Each structure stands twice: as structure tokens, then as C-alpha cells.
């Protein structure tokens, strides 16, 4: 399931809920992306989604990833709106029988979410606001998975 969150959320509470009642899982990998202060140069991150379209695109991609890696389950929460340094931007968690699949699927989902998911990102800093494009590192990370 994918949820877009307008307000700050607690990744730990999501992890607790995701781990509950799993007696055949073995491995739960997760990732939390936090907004960085960058020493004060980026005081606020703003993320815009296209409600309905953004969730559908993420859902479709995650369902495909779940098949590719043999996941038992997954959960994604992505923040939208204005995000302060230290707040969670994204939480991704994956459940599998063994850890290799759980780790790789989580890594794979993050690479895509960070570089290709339908969000538009603006940084508000002391010098004003600017729209951000994916970094070269984000593109390289995502391309690791291309066949």
C-alpha cells in the first residue's frame, strides 16, 4: 500500500505495524529518507504530487517490484507539502522470506522513488526557492537495475 502524507509521520510506528503478526517472513528491510538541513542552505523542502496519478504510478511500480523480487508484502509512505529538516520524506519497507530479496527490493524501490516517481521538488533556502531535478547519482542508482 502507498500513502501520501500531508503531515509529519513516524516511520517507527509504521515499521511496528508492518512487522506485526508475521510468522513466516524472516526478513523486513526498510528505508527512511530524512530531509537534510545542508548546514542551513536548504531550510524547507517542498514536494508536490498529482493526487491519484502519483499513488497509481507508485503502486504499479511496487507491484511489479514485488513480483520481481518475490516479496511477501511492502508498504510505502511518502510525504508531500513543506518538509522541515529532520522530518521523514519517505518510508519504504519490504517483507520477504530471506533477507537478500527484502534488501534488494527496498533498494530498488528507493532508487526509482528518488529519481523517477511523479513528484516535483522545490527547495526553499535563504537565497530563494528553486525546483530540483534528479541528481546524476540518482540516475546512476536507478540505472543499476535496468536490464
Amino acid at each position, binding site marked *: 500500500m502507498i500513502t501520501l502524507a500531508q503531515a509529519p509521520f513516524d516511520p517507527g510506528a509504521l515499521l511496528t505495524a508492518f512487522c506485526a503478526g508475521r510468522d513466516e517472513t524472516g526478513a523486513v528491510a526498510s528505508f527512511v*529518507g530524512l530531509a537534510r538541513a545542508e548546514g542551513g542552505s536548504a531550510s524547507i523542502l517542498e*514536494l508536490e504530487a498529482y493526487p491519484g496519478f502519483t499513488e497509481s504510478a507508485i503502486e504499479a511500480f511496487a507491484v511489479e517490484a514485488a513480483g520481481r523480487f518475490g516479496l511477501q508484502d511492502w508498504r510505502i509512505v511518502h510525504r508531500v507539502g513543506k518538509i522541515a529538516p529532520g522530518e521523514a520524506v519517505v518510508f519504504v519497507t519490504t517483507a520477504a522470506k530471506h533477507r537478500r530479496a527484502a534488501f534488494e527490493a527496498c533498494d530498488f524501490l528507493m532508487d526509482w522513488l528518488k529519481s*523517477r516517481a511523479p513528484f516535483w521538488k522545490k527547495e526553499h533556502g535563504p537565497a530563494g526557492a528553486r525546483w530540483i531535478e534528479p541528481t546524476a547519482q540518482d540516475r546512476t542508482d536507478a540505472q543499476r537495475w535496468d536490464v
Partner: protein
Amino acid sequence: MARVLLFGRLADQAGWREREVEAASLAALRASIAHDDAALARALEGPGVQVAVDKALVRGEAVLAAATEVAFLPPMSGG
């Protein structure tokens, strides 16, 4: 009537995010926007801008039924 949605830098440039436009096709919609704001119409045809009609990406031309949602999506940045 189509409901037009702009995202990211396109909304900043236009000064609006959502507007009702009378148009029976994507071409007519672009012409109507160009009539009001030629620079915006050019930006909507710029590199990497994708168009979604009722939340599905379309390429090229499209007929617009009544109460259709048309979104212009600049290059996505990821989250």
C-alpha cells in the same frame, strides 16, 4: 469544459495551478491557452513535459470529452 492542472515550475510560471478551459481537443486547449499566455503555451510544449488526460499519460493529440482532467507534468524529480 476541461479541468486543466499545472504542476511544478509550470504552475509557478503560469501563476495558476488549476483552471477550467472550454476545449474539445488537446490542440484546441493549447490554442486557448496560447491566446491568453503565449509563453505558457510554449512551455507546455517544452522538452520533457508530459500530458495526462484523466490521469493517464497521452502522446500527441487527444479528443477531450466533457469534464475531462488534463494535467501538464514537467520532468518529474522523484521524491
